[in-house]
Structure formats: C-alpha cells, structure tokens
C-alpha cells in the first residue's frame, strides 16, 4: 500500500465509523474519532470500562495520522519559519533562540489538548491496528442490492436471489509460506457457484435495508449445502495446484529426521541405562520440532462472509 492508498483507506474507515476529519492535506489527516473507532484504536480499555459503568459522556481522542512523514515535516518546518519571522523581531528572535538552546524546542501548543501523532506506513503498528479494526468490524454482513431502477408501477416486484458470499484465505505452508485469496458466491436458489464474487459485489450498491418492491426467490439450497459446494469446488481446484514445494519440504523433512536418527540412535546405544529415558524423550521432542518446522500443509480459513440478496434469479 502506498501513501495515497493508505489515505483512501483511512478516509473510508473514518466515514464508516462516524469519525470526523478535522484537517487534511496530501501528507496527513487529523481525525476526531467516534466512540466506536476510539474503542478499537486507542488501547484504553480501562477508560472505556469506566465510561460504560459510570455512564458518562465519553471524551474521544483525536489523532494526527501522517501518511507522508517527510513531506509533512517539511510543511511544518516551513510553516513554523513563516510564523516565526512574522511574529518575531530580530531581538526577540535572538531571545527565542537562546531559550530553545537551553530548554529545547518549545511548541506553542504545548498546553493544548494532546493530539498524538501516528505515522501510517505499510507495516506500521497503527495501520495494522486499523486493518484489525476493519476485520473485527467487517466480518459478517447481511445485505441487499439497491435496485438498479425504480419501477414506475408500485405493485411491480423485482425478484432477488440470496447468495452465500465468502472470501477464503488459502495458506500453503511448510517452513515457508504462500497465500492465495479465493472469493466465492453460491446462489442459495440454484446452487450456482461464482468465482471472484467479491469483485462483483464491489461494483454494486448494497444496503442493509430491504428495499421496497422486492421479493426473494425461494431458497432451494441450504447454507450447509452451499458450504459443501464451496469446499468441494475449492478442493478440486487445489488438487490441480503445483506441489513441488511440498515435495521439497517433505524431502528436507526426511533428511532432517535421518540426521536426528543417526545422532540419537548412536547416543542411545552407548548411553547408560539410567540416561536412556531422558535421551529418548529429548529425541522425540526434536523430532516433533522438525515436523512442526517442515511438514507441508494447506489451511483454508475465511477472511469474512455474508448473505447477499442480489437482483435476478441465477
């Protein structure tokens, strides 16, 4: 994610949580958090439990999110210089310099409310926290497509189909790892399955409210059957994948186990009886470690999912 994408991400998060942008430039945004966002982002569980129990009006925090720190710092410096030269005569300047030499830079707004600065870059902790907040707040949805056009006849009803939509993360792991993301939609009316379902959803206008003049087709498919369809479909697809990575990992695993066996079996042969149990136990631990390290495996888990009611019957 580059700084522009991060800005867009944050703006959308701000909108979605009812937070407010106080100030904004291409390099930064100052955000007054909504209570919901504050709970997610500020790490203040004690404060919030106090608010909840005492029932007082919460005071939410304001963050300065800097998305381009170099540019932002330059902006600040220029601004500070401009202000300084405007305000201070030559004599004052000298006094001010002396002061900042002895007690360091004094920010004019030091007595105001603290606005913590967070540099947001890909990999930064605050951005990770925003990602996590999006995940927590965006896991399960139940949505309706807004009708494309409003029918002139109030008694006309548009037919909708319910879809199970799920975004799946597939992890191919041994001592290394690769990931794929698969997005599926299964029509609960027909069992019809669509790939790249999330892309389709992203192009639509969706709302949590049931639109007027809409009727849903009868579900011929249970959710459980839909799940089985998705899993079968994905499994079939995965079977056709390249498994050379797993073969390599399995080979390394065998090699490592052989090295261990050689070492410990020799040791067990020559060990005195009283030590044998301890050595055998250690050997087993080491074998488990090696398996843990190398054993090839594929894991499928959901990123998020939902039920989507979309126009048309298919």
């Amino acid at each position, binding site marked *: 994610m580059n700084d522009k994408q991060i800005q867009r991400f944050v703006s959308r*998060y701000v909108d979605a949580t009812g937070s407010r942008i106080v100030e904004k430039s291409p390099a930064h945004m100052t955000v007054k958090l909504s209570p919901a966002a504050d709970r997610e982002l500020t790490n203040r569980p004690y404060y919030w439990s106090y608010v909840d129990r005492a029932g007082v009006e919460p005071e939410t925090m304001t963050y300065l999110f800097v998305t381009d720190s170099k540019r932002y710092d330059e902006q600040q410096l220029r601004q500070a210089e401009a202000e300084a030269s405007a305000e201070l005569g030559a004599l004052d300047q000298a006094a001010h310099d002396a002061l900042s030499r002895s007690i360091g830079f004094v920010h004019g707004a030091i007595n105001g409310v603290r606005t913590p600065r967070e540099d947001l870059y890909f990999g930064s902790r605050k951005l990770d926290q925003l990602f996590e907040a999006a995940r927590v707040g965006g896991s399960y949805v139940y949505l309706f497509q807004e009708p494309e056009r409003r029918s002139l006849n109030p008694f006309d009803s548009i037919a909708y189909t319910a879809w199970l939509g799920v975004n799946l993360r597939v992890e191919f792991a041994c001592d290394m790892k690769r990931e794929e993301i698969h997005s599926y939609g299964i029509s609960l009316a027909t069992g019809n399955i669509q790939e790249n379902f999330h892309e389709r959803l992203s192009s639509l206008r969706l709302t949590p409210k049931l639109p007027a003049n809409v009727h849903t087709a009868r579900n011929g498919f249970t959710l459980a059957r839909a799940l089985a369809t998705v899993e079968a479909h994905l499994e079939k697809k995965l079977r056709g994948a390249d498994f050379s990575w797993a073969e390599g990992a399995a080979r390394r695993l065998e090699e490592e186990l052989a090295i261990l066996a050689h070492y*410990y079996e020799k040791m067990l042969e020559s060990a005195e009886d009283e030590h044998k149990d301890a050595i055998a136990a250690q050997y087993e631990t080491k074998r488990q470690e090696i398996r*843990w390290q190398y054993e090839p495996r594929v894991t499928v888990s959901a990123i998020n999912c939902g*039920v989507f009611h979309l126009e048309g019957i298919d």
Partner: protein
Amino acid sequence: MTRTVKEGGAGRLHPLVDLRMDRAWFEELQSRIDRNGPWDDWTLYQLAMEAEHSRRIESFEELQCVRFLNGLEPMKHQTDTAVRVLHDMGGRAILADEVGLGKTIEAGLILKEYMVRGLVRKALILVPASLVLQWVRELNTKFGITAIAQKRAHTWNYDVVVASIDTAKRDPHRELLLGTDYDMLIIDEAHKLKNKKTTNYQFITQLRKKYCLLLTATPVQNDLEELYNLITLLKPGQLGGHGEFASNFVVGKRTPKNEGQLQEALSSVMIRNRRGEGDVKFTKRIVRNIPLQLSTEEMNLYEAVTTFVRERYEESGGNLTSMLSMVTLQREVCSSRDSVFLTLVNLFKKTAEDSPVRGKIWELIEVIKQIKSNTKAEKAMELVRESDGKVIIFTEYRATQEYLLQYFRGSDITAVPYRGGMGRGKKDWMMDLFRGRAQVMIATEAGGEGINLQFCSRIINFDLPWNPMRVEQRIGRVHRLGQTEDVQIYNLCTLGTIEEHIVNLLHEKINMFESVIGELDHILERFEQEETMEQRLARVLLEARDEKDLTQGIEHLGHSIRKYAEQPAETENTAMPEEAEAPAPRRGSRAARRHAINRLLDGASTIVEVDSP
C-alpha cells in the same frame, strides 16, 4: 434437514499434504442468521478484504519484510543472509558475521519475515542483560515489532519477549518457558553457550522451538569442540555424532582436518560475512595530540608522586605486581588531583599506623592542596566550546569523571555521566539524554556491548588506557558503521610526564589510532603472550633510572609491537624474519591454534563490501 458441520474438515490434498478447512466462520454466520444479527458494516467488510489483499504473501521465495519496513534500508549482505537462512537453512542458523556488520539487523529481518508470513507469532529472544533494552528498542523502531523486555512473570505472555538468559533459566521462569512452544528462538552472544555442561546450555537444549538463530561474532575461540556444541544446539547430528566429529574433523583436539569438508558442512548451518580487505569504507579518523604544559603546582605534584612511587618500588625489592597500583598514582596525577587524592586516601587507610609511609602520604596531600586549577579540564572545555556538536570525553577514573561533571555544570554545559556500574536502565537513559539535549557525555567505560554513538563524532581522550584494545574500544563506539562524519580524536597529553610517552607510543610508534580495525587484537594477542601491555609498560616505567632510560624502554616496546604487526599472519608457522625477537608461535600454542581456527572460519565466510551509509 440441514447437515450441521461442527468440526473443521480435514483430508489429504496430495499424498504428502493435509488439507485443513476451518469452518468456525460458518457456524458464526449460521448463528447470526438464526439470531437475526448483529450484522457488520459493508465498508469495513470491503476494507478488511483490501487489507488482506495488501498483506497477502504471493510467493514462497520473495523477501516480503522489506516492504513492511519504514526508514530501514538493509544492506545487501544483510538481505542476502536473510534469504539464505529462509530458503536454504529452513530458519535454523548461526549468524556469525564479524563485529559491526549487523547481525541484529539480519536477525530482525528474518524474524520480521516469518512474522509477516504468519509463521512466527511467539518469539523468545535471549541476550546478555546489558543488551535487553537495546534489542527491544531496535525491534520496535527499526522493525515495527512489538517486543517487550521481560520484567515480571506475566510478561512472558507477550508474543515477542526479550530477556536475559540468566533470568530465563531460573525458577519460576524456567518451568514456564520449558512448557511453551516457541515459534522462534534467538540467542545473542551465543558463544557463551560453548560449554555443554553449563546449565545455560542444557536449558537452551530443552526449550522447544521451531526456528532458531544463534548470533555470535566468534563461533569458535579456542577449541573446535565449541563449534560442535553450538551446532548441536541448533541441529543435533549435523556434524555427526560426537565421536564421528572428533575422528572426521579434529586432529589433536585443536586443529581441524578435512578442512574443505568441514567448511562445507559449516556453511549449511552458519553464515559468516567478513569485510573485504581494503574495501572498508569507514569515514576518516583525524587524530590530534594536544600537548599541555602542567601548571607549576601540578608539576610539583607529579614529581613528588614519582619520587614516592620509585621509593616504594625500591623498598618492595622490584616486585612488579604489588606496584601496579602505585603506577596508577602517577597516571592519575596526569588526570586530576581528585583521582590522586582518592587513591592516596585509600592507601593511607591501608598503611600500618606506625609506618613512616603515612607521613609521606600526608606530605603528598599537602602538595595536592596547592593545586587550584586543572589544566586539562580547561583545555577540554575549550575544545567543547569550539564545536557545536556532541563530544564524548573518556577518562579512566571515577573521581575525574565526577570532577568534570561538576566543572562542566559550573559552566552551563550539559554533561551526562556513563559508567560500568550503572544499571541498564540508567545507561539507556544517559544515552538518550546524550542523544537529545546533553552536549557532552563523560564516560569511564567504553567496553561492554551496546554503546552506539554514531551521532557523535568527537572524542576527547582525557587520559589514555594503557591497553591499546581499550583505546580501540573507545574509538569504536563512535567510529563505526553508520558514522557519517570524519571522527575527530583529541588526545590530551601532559608534557614531561609518563603520559607523553604513552601517547607517543600509541600514536607514533604503533600508529594505533588509525590502525585497521580487527587486526589489532591479533597483533596484541601475539605480543601479549607472556605479559600484558600494561605490565610491560609498568615494568619499563619502574625500572627506568632516568628519562633517557624510559624513552629507550618505550622505544623498544614500540619496536617489538611493530614487528608483530608487520609480520603477516600467514607466515606465522614458517620462517620468521631473523631479527624478530618474538619466537614463531609453536604448533599447539595459543596463537597457532587461533590461526588454524581463523583460517577455518574464513574459509566458510563470504566477503562483503560495506559502505558507510
């Protein structure tokens, strides 16, 4: 009827590969449908997906962590090392770079890579106590890894914990740690684990870990056994059973055989980067000796002390060891009256009540009282005032340190102390102050790992240690990778004293201040086989009858060190230049052993070119 799916599905995807399907999401979805909500926000749903896409690990090979780092640009040999550990070594390796090439950065890259890939969540980092906070700080600031310094029992619950091995192995921590599965274990200064019999070694063997990094600049010092033990900790059996290792690779316990094979075996578990000869692009060292004329009062004291010391030496009948502390007195006069005073007071207390020496000490104290100012301190102040930048002042003596702190404080210059006895928290704090608003740091300790002062480029040697390695350590704190300025080194040198000779010896004779880093210790090791440099100097000093004698003695010392320096290491075991006084290291001697071991390690190293950024 709906078929309910409670457990996650599992099956074989390929003869070698299990497939695990997590269905927790499905149960949750079903239950929300049953309860008619609550439902999440559509925008956040999309954002979650977007975040997931941006974090997706697209390939097994490509190093991912670099795009997660802000402001840290690892050097090529560091990323190369990370890639090798990840791909060729399965995440278990000894990182054995020479000092200053960034083992910590390499370990950080590897840890971050595994974390980004979701292969490591729980990591334990065991380091010497003095390095705990530095590791925490580096992981946090350079790698954005939330690492916690172990303080209380519950700290162990955090994902990434840095602790000292001595704490970790003790009860009640021990049991807790042995009961945990660590995705990654990192051990810094791992050469301390060379002995199989120690509790530390056995503790590490028992810890359960998936990936493991051992960091050390000296994977083997005296004995090949050390190397074997280190590798056994990492991968038991990699060099065969113990007997096999001994018979395949070791001659007479000390000298490797089948070197080529051993090196090959080593390179599968160890990465060692070395600086190339001559492509080290450090900034320059600019050395200035500042000759100072002591005031009449100070000179009186110096002469009185010299006479006192010589008398004691003659009384002792030439016993050198008991005289080392006496020599210290002479050196202290060149530093500050405060330090002489303190030593004299202690001496007074130790002397028998009826000894005539007590009277003599008392006389010396009278001489001290005459001294009103410190010539060196005035000069040091002048040097500090000349520059706006940071200055670090090194002294050998606590009393001098205290005096200087007061002296600078009296002149409105912010100075902070740094010494060996401080706790690690305080040391860190002092470093932070020096990095921030203090212009001057006054340090009595340069050794110890972990003082990195690249932001400062001026050193004042208020007085000099007699051990050249310690001089190099001082300079090394500032003149290291990451230093962007030429380093100014000022040696304050009082004329007509022993100090003048020392500065002369270190600077003119052995060219210590500009010498190539890394070679000095080899030279000294050969030179100091029988007696340390300090002992030799003290002997010369005490035995000299007059100034001429002293000059000659020191001249002679410098000459023999230079011999060692000029004699290339490779010719160690062959013929020596005829005029060299030092005997060639005998086979089996410490130096010869060291040489064989170095050759082995060098053969398993990669030479890297490093520019000072």
